[in-house]
């Protein structure tokens, strides 16, 4: 066991897999000699060579496409897209190709590519370094979509993704790379060493894909969330003094409906929290499913707290970010309903 922040945990996951499986390769912009702009691949090229940790041209579509081809030829590629905001030039290759190859060839061809990409705001990145486009990918049949909220999960889930024969888009909430974040930018930064999930085994372990985790048990309301917002939600519930059951979705698609439904049936109330814009965001799917499955148990409408339906504005970052204040307001709203 070691103390790791999320960057170290991700690095460790890739290190373990490069070591165990000679078919694992990494390709992406600045991932090689430099070790990645967030340093997630630091030291890996030195250790495994420049033929396995490969610097790429600036062409996200080309990175995904060549990764697909490598996967078809027996490698197990990890493709890094430098920011989730820059995944769109690779969209066709992800949606039309990576996601559909197994289906269209009736299982004869497939490519086990894992796409890693940092997402989310709160780092003063402005409109093109802050986006959370995960919802879009959850609508694409044939993909797994994963987002961890802490170092322990990050490593275990990433190893599962690399080992999975399904293609995965793995979103890394970069605001919590270095420490958990409760939504208050004025507080001093907290390192992962203060958090239980900052304890990470050095070696190989996995966290199964497709399972949510109940990070707080509670009785009054279920908060369904993921990524950075897990921590904001925890802090908000605490501040509000509400006994919330908080679920970290982790695997967005396929989704662990059972865990969510069981909790909401128990609590009778539900709030969904994510950083992505609200309209047609992943929260919509969560709310639609929960109302369908838990209708007779619901004592109040399901609430959604999400980014406003605008691009991520540089100067209004903290008015945009769905912080504790908004979570608490939504919680009270739901608790007071009827």
């Amino acid at each position, binding site marked *: 066991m070691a103390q790791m922040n999320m960057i170290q945990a991700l690095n460790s996951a890739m290190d373990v897999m490069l070591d165990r499986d000679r078919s694992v*390769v990494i390709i992406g912009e600045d991932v090689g000699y430099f070790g990645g702009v967030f340093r997630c691949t630091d030291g890996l090229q030195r250790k495994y060579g420049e*033929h*396995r940790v490969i610097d790429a*041209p600036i*062409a996200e*579509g*080309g990175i995904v*496409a*060549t*990764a*697909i*081809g*490598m*996967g*078809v*030829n*027996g*490698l197990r590629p990890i493709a890094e897209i430098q920011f989730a905001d820059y995944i769109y*030039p690779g969209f*066709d*290759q992800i949606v*039309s*190709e990576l996601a*559909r*190859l*197994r*289906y*269209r*060839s*009736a*299982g*004869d*061809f*497939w490519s086990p590519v894992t796409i890693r990409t940092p997402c989310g705001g709160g780092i003063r990145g402005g409109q093109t370094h802050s986006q959370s486009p995960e919802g879009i990918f959850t609508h694409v*049949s*044939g993909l*797994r979509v994963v987002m961890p909220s802490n170092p322990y999960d990050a490593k275990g889930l990433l190893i599962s993704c690399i080992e*999975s*024969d*399904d293609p995965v888009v793995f979103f890394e909430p970069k605001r919590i790379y270095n420490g958990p974040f409760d939504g208050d930018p004025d507080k001093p930064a907290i390192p992962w060493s203060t958090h239980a999930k900052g304890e990470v085994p050095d070696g190989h372990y996995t966290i199964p894909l*497709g399972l949510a985790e109940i990070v707080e048990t509670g009785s009054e309301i279920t908060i369904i969330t993921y990524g950075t917002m897990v921590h904001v939600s925890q802090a908000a519930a605490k501040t509000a003094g509400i006994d919330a059951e908080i679920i970290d979705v982790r695997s967005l698609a*396929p*989704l662990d*409906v*059972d865990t969510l439904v069981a909790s909401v049936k128990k609590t009778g109330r539900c709030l969904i929290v994510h950083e992505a814009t609200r309209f047609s965001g992943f929260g919509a799917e969560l709310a639609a499913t929960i109302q369908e499955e838990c209708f007779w148990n619901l004592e109040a409408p399901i609430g959604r707290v999400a980014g406003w339906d605008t691009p991520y504005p540089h100067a209004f970052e903290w008015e945009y970010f769905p912080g504790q204040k908004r979570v608490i307001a939504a919680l009270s709203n739901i608790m007071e309903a009827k």
Partner: protein
Amino acid sequence: MTRGSRLHIPHPPARPGEEPDFSYLETSPAGAIARPDINAKTADIEHLAVELIRVLDDDHNAVGPWDPRLDPGELQIGLRHMLLTRIFDARMQRIQRQGKITFYMQSTGEEAVSVAQGMALRPSDMCFPSYRNQGLYMVRGRNLVDLMCQCLSNTRDMCKGRQLPIMYHWAEGNIFSISGNLGTQFPQAVGWAMAAAIKGEDHIAASWIGDGTTAEADFHYAITFASVYRAPVILNVVNNQWAISTFQGFAGGEKRPFAARGPGVGIPGLRVDGNDFLAVHAATQWAAERARRGGGATLIEHVTYRQAAHSTSDDPSRYRPKNDAAAWPLGDPVERLKDHLIKIGEWSEDRHEALIKELEHVVQAAWKESNKYGTLTEGPWLDNDLMFDDVLKELPPHLEKQRAELRALEE
């Protein structure tokens, strides 16, 4: 506002009702172009991207340094594969017209590309085809029944009913799955080739796209990555002059041959007479050997003509002269190889007729057999459950639920 428009709009040389006009086509005499060493520097062989590599001359002789000197037996096999492709296409086209399959695309006039290239590659080389490379399946010997069953989406369909007709694939035969999205396979082939290089293997990849598709991003990704990593891949542009209704000028072929995109990024470009079986074979051999020896990628432009409609949904008489194909200066690939074989005394009109009969029979028999596995209108049919498989490797809970819902409905 457009009174004074200064925008340049490319124009095909002739429209319906006009005489075919191929004066725009720049050619070289057969045998005129030197065959450089496979280790030649790209900068020294840029002219190959604008000249036209040809072997068969107007008298049906094979001439010049690009002559691959194939055995007559091999040429006969090539002729057979091309004819089979053409007869298969014609039959499937008729079958679609009879409403027995939903869609079809012929490769008429372009058979030399797939067949000569397929023969110049090793079976272990990986092909990433477009939808007009059915000739590869002939070369690699896929059972016609398998192809037909795919077109029928019947119980023996290799795609389990999931794809349009002609969107074949063949894992054991090293032929990749066809997507409906144009061009996506081009950079995938480069990735496959990169993996072969990483593994230290000497297999190479080959991929094909049309002239129109060169405008897509994937073309650019492919040539860029192939250049950067010196990937062992042959990237083929089949310039059949048309992209549905638009003339190749709309892809930028008016000013500069597509082969020239290669030298533009530092990989050799070969412009080849795509209707000349021997030239296509020779160029492919050159590129394959270069790739296998570590020299990296080659871009080959095959200058050919799409004799038929784009697909069964298309009617080319709306946008080009009816007799265009007959006027195409580079002739017909089947006729040209046949004439060459006759010229060298290895073929005859009679043998040709007999071969056509034989292949028509083969195709007919395959069609009969294919129908046993189901048709559009008659069973047996694929099990509906198959619709939910292979989305992911294992059936996830939500699809299990949806499958159950469908089952319940069907009861």
